[in-house]
């Protein structure tokens, strides 16, 4: 799968309260959640983000609460992929489980003009291309087992296939 979209930059330790505040957790609808994405740390963001956009975080992206509403809100906004130097473990699991594409890239993506520069992400090749500069970054590969969940489109489909392989 190849995505191309505008990049938005976020720093280190972006917590799930920042991604979606608890006061909005009375719904499970990704579209309703998306309206408040990153609202407390970047109030204008829900009005800026558009389908296909790519979020770029620093270390420990998605730390804190286990709320799956965080990756759901990101998915609901139509974000195509989240790239971070590292992910907090529950967010990492959740993103893979619900089929939100993520990439861990240890190298700092530098010189990106947020909201205007575009990135091209190749999930199979594990590469991220900064289209304005042509610079290519390499992402960490997924273990085969996780790649399988991703290929299936999430944990539910993966487990279904395991429990009932004939289907």
């Amino acid at each position: 799968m190849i995505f191309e979209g505008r990049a938005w930059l976020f720093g280190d330790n972006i917590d799930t309260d920042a991604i979606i505040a608890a006061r909005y957790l009375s719904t499970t609808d990704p579209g309703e959640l998306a309206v408040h994405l990153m609202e407390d740390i970047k109030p204008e963001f829900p009005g800026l983000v558009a389908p296909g956009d790519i979020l770029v975080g620093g270390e420990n992206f998605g730390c804190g609460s286990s709320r799956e509403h965080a990756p759901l809100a990101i998915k609901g906004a139509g974000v195509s992929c989240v790239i971070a130097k590292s992910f907090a473990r529950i967010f990492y699991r959740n993103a893979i489980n619900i089929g939100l594409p993520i990439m861990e890239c240890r190298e700092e993506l530098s010189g990106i003009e947020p909201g205007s520069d575009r990135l091209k992400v190749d999930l199979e090749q594990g590469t991220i291309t900064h289209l304005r500069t042509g610079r290519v970054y390499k992402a960490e590969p997924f273990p085969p087992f996780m790649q399988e969940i991703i290929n299936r489109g999430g944990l539910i489909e993966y487990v279904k296939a395991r429990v009932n392989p004939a289907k």
Partner: protein
Amino acid sequence: MNQKNRLDHGSASNNSTNHGSTHGSTMVEKILAAKSGKKRVAPGNLVNTKVDLALGNDITAPVAIKEFERFGVDKVFDPEKIVLVPDHFTPNKDIASAEQALLIRQFAQKYKIKHYYEIGRMGIEHALLPEQGLVRPGEVIIGADSHTCTYGALGAFATGVGSTDLAAAMVIGEAWFKVPSTLRFEFRGQLPRWVGGKDLILYTIGQIGVSGARYRAMEFAGSAISNLSVDGRLTMANMAIEAGGKCGYVQPDQVTFDYLKGRVTGPYEAVYSDDDAVYEQIFSFDVSDLEPQIAFPPSPDRVRPVSEAEGIELQQVVIGSCTNGRIEDLRIAAAVIKNKRVHPAVRMLVIPATQQIYRQALEEGLLTTFIDAEAVVSTPTCGPCLGGHMGILASGEKALATTNRNFVGRMGHPQSEVFLSGPAVAAASAVAGKIVHPEEVAR
């Protein structure tokens, strides 16, 4: 002021050079091996384990139930091994949250979930499950709540997951894990008065940072832990996630067994780390001179001793949550605030974490002490901890809370601020109207 230096004979050593196959295993490695049918496992291995208990709450279970329904199955793997606790937005704060609670209630009825806790029996999940005897040493417990790591205090492998993980576990009774490497934290010395489990864990998070234990297990040990009550240990394991930890744990000992007696029915097998287990890193802290600790907003690792926080004016104090809403916490707070009054500029909320704790506090006269001091006493709820209800902050307000997180907007308005502490500092500061050392109010 130079407390940090005094404590810095605390050292970190690394013994991960021993890669021989003869070395022993940590408690977590042993539990994950046993529950995945393997003889032994090593950090980095991916394992599929049996789940002894799977937990959801009124925020996470609705998402899990939606996912569960996609399986198209007509039963759960074991109705006795699923726990559903509507504790976050309950007693329901609005129609939307009531609808979510209704969804869980109906699911629990339909699938005959044994451990569903309705209002009146409900408590904050991570105080409730140990109290009700649902947590046993040596077990694998997952919960769609990040503070599920609390149960490591009783020698279980317990970790937070998301709703989809919970949904899958409700169907197949299994979950996958990457075996974590382990960081060992040794706390030497005797804790000073007014210093407890919360101060130890805040200090630790301050030392290693919010991603210092990312993906790792945290083993808490040493004389200060041996002498720590189960309530204090639960507080410590609870906040392992605030350092990014997969789990935090204390190996079972007599203190553990005394707590489990009369709560837990049925056999269980305590598991211990081998003497020659391999740790990624070992930290050793002398805590004899540790001051009460404060985490400054907006991150639980911005930790300083109380002497560096004194004088910060407060509008709200919260004593409660899965971190510090247990009976010992209420006793400490009541001892500090007895025969005193909450400062006129401060709202103080006391939230016993479970009905049993509520009743115990009532019988011990603690609630009268709080009410006499003009504090609010609430029915069990996570409430203000996550900015849900029952004590939301306005713009520009500052709160001191015994809770676990102080991220931007955590307790209300994005321009409000939350400081974290243990119950002694919180109660004393409510009286003073500003952050103070408990000694200044209690003497």
